[in-house]
């Protein structure tokens, strides 16, 4: 549909010095902001869009793509170094990243995160560039019924992370879903559980819930546990052997199946709008953990845990451009912001895009490849910088972290209300941690909730209220059967075993 000359011209446009500089600037800014607790690449893109109006379309889009991709890498940095995810995507990375830091291998963990992220991202971009058209057809067939089954499948896989107690896992999941029903219901637009607060019409702000329960709760718990003596927030042993600081090629290759599975899960989630990279990261983590011969080593600093999550959450990005470019359906908040920017710069997603704007689209693809390279190169510099920065005293790091969370949530929710909500969820997160209710599962359920309810309503209508009509949706049936299997295999069986052994699986509890 696009001739080779257009493709080459488009790629040529991308590989000019000024464009490379714009993409690099975006990546640097994205990594920086992603690494700041409380801020997100969504917020950065929203703030950056007006500034990009004066650029040429390709520079502007390249810059924004750079911000988006840089943010994915940056978010992992504080997750690994101080157990405080910079973005919700990275909360899965903290599960094994932070234990690696505690074992004195923060640099190695950061490098693995970077390599995995760039691997997943590049894989996904190549999929986008080479097989976007056939995948777009697959994406078309993923209707509401199939999406509903896929969300069930996400829950089923994530049940593998439920921890020691099945009932606590269920309560956390269901509570997350329940919190997501606050606000207007997706089917009839009637207000629910507002208790007289008009701010709640749009529900609890996502950033308030995520940052409150994942980041603020962790900092406050850590401060409360502090007992005199000012240590650096991060301690890197000086006499490390090279082996403890680097990721060898053999170690990287040992993770190749983990990386590939993560990338495939990421691509699969990416082409289906509305599920999101955080869920992809957790799905990849849960399935890697269960496929491993030694699942008990996860959560204690297993490098495969990092490979699984970072490859998956980064692989969502490229694939999510498939529904975005071909149909104009954004798969995530940042993708939605990108659409707005595309339109402003004259890139109209839809069936005619490749015909009418082929050169610009291939320029965009070129910019994505450049952004991945920049991510790798600047990431290696940046991770040293950050790990040096976080060797500052705990007092500075955590006090500034809390101020940043307040500012970040204030800016992204547009008011003080969101900051109060953040504090409420910080309290909830601490209580859940202390009582061994899995907070990350709560947050994931909250993220998936609105899409879950919407597709539940759509599915009920499409099946005309009759479950036997599911026979017209074989893909959905397969997904549901796989879900039932994984709930038993990943969730119930290990939990029963764990109960028998009276071993508490969730021991990373800061309030203990």
């Amino acid at each position, binding site marked *: 549909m696009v001739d080779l000359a257009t493709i080459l011209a488009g790629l040529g446009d991308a590989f000019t010095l000024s464009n490379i500089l714009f993409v690099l600037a975006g990546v640097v800014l994205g990594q920086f902001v992603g690494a700041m607790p409380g801020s997100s690449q969504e917020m950065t893109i929203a703030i950056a869009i007006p500034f990009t109006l004066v650029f040429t379309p390709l520079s502007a889009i390249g810059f924004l793509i750079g911000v988006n991709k840089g943010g994915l890498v940056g978010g992992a940095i504080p997750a690994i170094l101080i157990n405080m995810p910079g973005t919700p995507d990275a909360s899965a990375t903290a599960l094994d990243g932070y234990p690696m830091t505690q074992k004195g291998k923060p640099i190695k963990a950061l490098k693995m995160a970077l390599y995995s992220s760039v691997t997943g991202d590049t894989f996904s971009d190549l999929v986008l560039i080479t097989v976007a058209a056939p995948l777009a057809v697959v994406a078309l067939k993923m209707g509401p019924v199939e999406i509903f089954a896929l969300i069930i499948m996400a829950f089923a896989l994530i049940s593998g992370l439920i921890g020691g107690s099945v009932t606590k896992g269920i309560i956390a999941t269901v509570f997350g879903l329940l919190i997501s029903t606050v606000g207007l219901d997706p*089917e009839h637009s009637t207000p629910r559980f507002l208790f007289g607060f008009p701010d709640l019409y749009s529900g609890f702000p996502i950033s308030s819930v995520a940052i409150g329960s994942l980041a603020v709760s962790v900092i406050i718990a850590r401060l409360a546990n502090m007992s005199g003596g000012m240590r650096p927030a991060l301690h890197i042993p000086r006499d490390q052997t090279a082996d403890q600081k680097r990721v060898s090629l053999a170690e990287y290759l040992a993770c190749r199946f983990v990386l590939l599975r993560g990338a495939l899960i990421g691509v699969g989630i990416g082409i289906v*709008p509305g599920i999101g990279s955080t869920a992809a990261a957790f799905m990849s983590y849960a399935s890697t953990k269960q496929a491993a011969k030694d699942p008990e080593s996860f959560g204690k600093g297993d490098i495969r845990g990092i490979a699984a999550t970072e490859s998956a959450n980064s692989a969502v990005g490229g694939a999510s451009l498939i529904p975005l470019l071909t149909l104009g359906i954004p798969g995530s908040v940042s993708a939605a912001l*990108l659409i707005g920017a595309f339109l402003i710069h004259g890139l109209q997603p839809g*069936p005619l895009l490749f015909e009418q704007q082929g050169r610009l689209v291939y320029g965009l693809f070129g910019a994505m490849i450049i952004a991945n390279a920049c991510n790798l190169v600047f990431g290696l510099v940046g991770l040293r910088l950050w790990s040096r920065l976080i060797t500052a005293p705990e007092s500075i790091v955590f006090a500034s972290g809390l101020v940043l969370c307040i500012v970040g949530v204030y800016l992204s929710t547009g008011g003080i209300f969101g900051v109060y909500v953040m504090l409420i969820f910080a309290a909830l997160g601490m209580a859940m941690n202390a009582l061994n209710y899995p907070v990350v599962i709560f947050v994931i359920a909250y993220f998936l909730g609105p899409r879950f309810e919407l597709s539940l309503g759509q599915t009920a*209508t499409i099946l005309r209220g009759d479950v036997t009509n599911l026979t017209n949706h074989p893909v959905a049936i397969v997904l549901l059967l796989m879900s039932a299997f994984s709930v038993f295999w990943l969730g119930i069986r290990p939990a029963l075993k764990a109960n028998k052994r009276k071993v508490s699986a969730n021991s990373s509890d800061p309030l203990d």
Partner: protein
Amino acid sequence: MKIINTLKAAVCAAAVALPGAALADWQPDGPITLQVGFGAGGSTDTLARAVAAEMEENTGWDVVVENKPGGGGIAMFSQLVNARPDGLTMGMGVTIPTLINLAERGETLPFKADSFDYLATVAVAPLAVVAPADAPYDNIAELIAYSKENGGALVGFDGGEMRLMMQAINNTEGAGFELVNYQSGAEIIQGLLGGQLQAGWGAGAHIQYIESDDLKMLAVATQTRQAYAPDTTSFIEQGFPYSAEPYFYIAAPKGLDPEARDALASALDAAITSDALTELVGNVMQTTPTNLGADGTEAKLVNGLSEITSLIEAAGN
């Protein structure tokens, strides 16, 4: 943060270099926030961002766009009504969803139609019902017949007025349409192309697919025909006495200083009628910007209530 400085410098330079910046008496004493009652990336959001950018360029004011999605703009207007009327906060929504909410649960909402100072409309959404190009029906009557034969056609919608019009037809014709709720016009198109829906509503996103021959028009919901499909008749012409013309509009909390109101209204008008907006509205919705002005906008909101109320009665809920 050098990059931000550089960008900032570039933007400032661009702003200074622009000729003929409007010199109104009233000047905002801070950044102006344009709140959008819909999520990022939708047509309302895109229009708002373009209007804001155009205003910044013309006036040198700082105009920030914030998304406050939920309930077809109700979440945003419920908060906007309590904002200070200092000219620094405006909201952009769509007339029909606001009117439906006022009609269906006006007593529970924190605002009424006259709780705002209205400033401008930006455009009318070209509402239409579309179907896959190979579907065996070409208008609403044939769709109804198809639906009756096949146990209810699945029709995708993403707005209350679309639902009401289909429910009204279900009531009078016994069409048995099964209405599937979507979050955006783009997702409805996905449902149509993917074969999950037999028909669906479009509010602009469908037009490209008409041009690419993937979809076809069944009827337009506006009172008059639409420029990109001059042969497609309206619901009214096809014998179903219903219509809906959703305007994108901008309002501020009631009690603006008249000078501020005039300054904002004229700055908005300059932005809405600018070439850039004309091009963008043409790209996004295949139509031209329409600014009814402050009074015209107010009339749409205040008088539109009775039309919606009768549509709700026809729909039977």
